[in-house]
């Protein structure tokens, strides 16, 4: 890594989006302003602010937001002096109308997320985002579920539809080192000459940062993190760990190490109810390849129906449920309870 200067990478912080899962989507405007202020001061270029399940995610199925997304986006835009504010949307949950409202509130980056085999449902949203003049990012979730070549073809669909960057998203925290490396390489080979490639890691097997480094070494130029790892499952790659790690590797991020550590320690940590942790449920997610956002829903169903959360998550993994199917967690809990009643 010392023979030549590495190309600068861009860190996107998702504390206020993926972290929303861990906060049960109950961020206050004051918390949003505090986090944006600290990240912006540290030099983080893109800050994502949305319900954990994206625009339109506020619902019975995913949990109702305390504050409207658009209001929080407007507050973030108001607070930022340099950083761009990004929003996430999942076609099927949010719509172009939601995207327009977020854009009107000042959001500059549209991140459009689909399951890793369903890229073609995002085309109307990329077209709309480009028409609005937004920067576009595609998000191929649950990337462990398909082989690298299949993933690369899906990235191609997004780029042809207007995505300027496509992320390999390890939603389940299930990619183990080489798995991440191969997927990034395949996507870079397919789209690298016309779009950037990004990586979004989770800590369910504690590999978020290591996978992010491998991603960068294989050509990824955008990397996601979250302060204090605040995110679904065992959390995301911690932004305050990514930044010093890349600095030690000689990879510029444009982010101040002390500033981002202070943001995690002084701004986020004080308002957390629980620190993200690889407990039995979260490890099961990484091991069985289960969407990280399902964790708290499984814990709630476990309490309501008196069956273990890790058993629910194991079953959900076996059934192959994808991001968005939170309702199936209740269904699985009901089936498990019925099985137990029959056995006793």
């Amino acid at each position: 890594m010392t023979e030549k200067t590495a190309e600068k990478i861009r860190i996107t912080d998702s504390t206020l989006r993926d972290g929303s899962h861990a906060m049960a989507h109950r961020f206050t405007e004051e918390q949003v302003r505090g986090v944006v202020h600290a990240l912006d001061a540290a030099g983080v270029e893109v800050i994502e602010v949305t319900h954990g399940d994206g625009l339109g995610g506020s619902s019975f199925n995913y949990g109702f937001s305390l504050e409207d997304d658009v209001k929080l986006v407007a507050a973030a835009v108001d607070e930022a002096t340099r950083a761009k504010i990004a929003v996430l949307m999942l076609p099927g949950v949010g719509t172009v109308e939601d995207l327009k409202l977020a854009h009107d509130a000042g959001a500059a980056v549209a991140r459009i997320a689909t399951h890793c085999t369903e890229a073609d449902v995002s085309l109307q949203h990329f077209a709309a985002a480009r028409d609005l003049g937004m920067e576009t990012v595609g998000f191929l979730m649950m990337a462990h579920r398909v082989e690298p070549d299949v993933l690369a073809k899906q990235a191609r669909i997004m780029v042809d539809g207007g995505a300027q960057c496509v992320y390999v998203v390890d939603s389940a925290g299930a990619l183990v080192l080489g798995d991440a490396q191969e997927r990034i390489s395949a996507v870079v080979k397919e789209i690298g000459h016309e779009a950037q490639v990004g990586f979004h890691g989770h800590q369910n097997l504690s590999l978020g940062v290591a996978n992010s480094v491998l991603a960068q070494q294989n050509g990824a130029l955008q990397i996601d993190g979250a302060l204090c790892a605040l995110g679904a499952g065992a959390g995301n790659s911690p932004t305050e760990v990514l930044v010093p790690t890349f600095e030690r590797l000689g990879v510029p991020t444009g982010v101040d190490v002390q500033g981002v550590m202070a943001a995690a320690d002084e701004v986020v940590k004080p308002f957390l109810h629980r620190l993200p942790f690889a407990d039995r449920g979260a490890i099961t997610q990484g091991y069985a390849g289960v969407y990280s956002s399902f964790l708290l829903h499984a814990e709630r169903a476990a309490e309501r129906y008196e069956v273990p959360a890790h058993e629910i998550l194991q079953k959900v993994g076996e059934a192959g449920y994808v991001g968005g199917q939170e309702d199936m967690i209740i269904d699985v809990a009901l089936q498990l309870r019925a099985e137990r009643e029959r056995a006793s």
Partner: protein
Amino acid sequence: MSEADRGARETVPSPGAGRRLSAAIVGPGNIGTDLLVKLMRSELIDVHSVVGVIPGSDGLERARKMGVEASAEGVDWLLKQPTLPDLVFESTSAKAHLANAPRYEEAGITAIDLTPAATGPLVCPPVNLDTLSDAPNLNMITCGGQATIPIVHAVSSVVPVPYAEIVASIASRSAGPGTRANIDEFTQTTARAIEKVGGAGRGKAIIILNPVDPPMIMRDTVFCAIPPDADTGAIQESVEKMVAEVAVYVPGYTLRAEPQFDGPRDIWNGMARVAVFLEVRGNGDYLPPWAGNLDIMTAAAARVGEQIARRKATS
């Protein structure tokens, strides 16, 4: 049914069945092809033709093999035919239907719209089939709407429902290019129908495509906000009665579990909640039984066509 049987039925209608109507299917994709199989069994509807835009497409070839006239020359071809159909079932895309709808109306053809274009009144058979007007265009909402709106209506006929939300999960393989290009229209049209037809104050719809192999059977979840003191027994009874009504035309429409009631919560504005978990196993007419989304949509559309035939016979 053999060609001879069909010919016999055309001239000798079964008692009380009224005049048989002729119908074209425009858009021979997954939905159009599944509908074709159902209409070929109908005692009240004859298939006039199947119309597409891709020569040699699987849907057109299947229609020809079933002895139905098929054209790849689109609606232009259809409207040039010496005998026009009484009905057209359109299963293209919302955009295509918006362009075609005025042309059907001008030609005096009643359109049954299976796209989420939703230009005409929204129809869900067990809720409002009896009140069908003579509108020139009737919209079948969406597959997720056909699966869930009966349940929203069953709840809202017992207690006020200020908010209802549905989650429809379908197998990726059953979502053709039209569905994929119309995801926003799906959620918006379904949400509107949850309000207008289902009777909820506000509606929200979510659709998820799942690529798991073997494919997952269509699943739908209905969440309704209900008053904290709601009569849960009456709601359960109403839901179970409605499931039986839908099962008359979609036999694979079943409850996965009893309706789940959760008490009031602050984050639900003090409302309580009922959650209903449904499975929709299809008839396997075109795609295999996991594609319940096709089955419930086409079975509902065929029912609407047959109701129009009955009305015309008695009017």
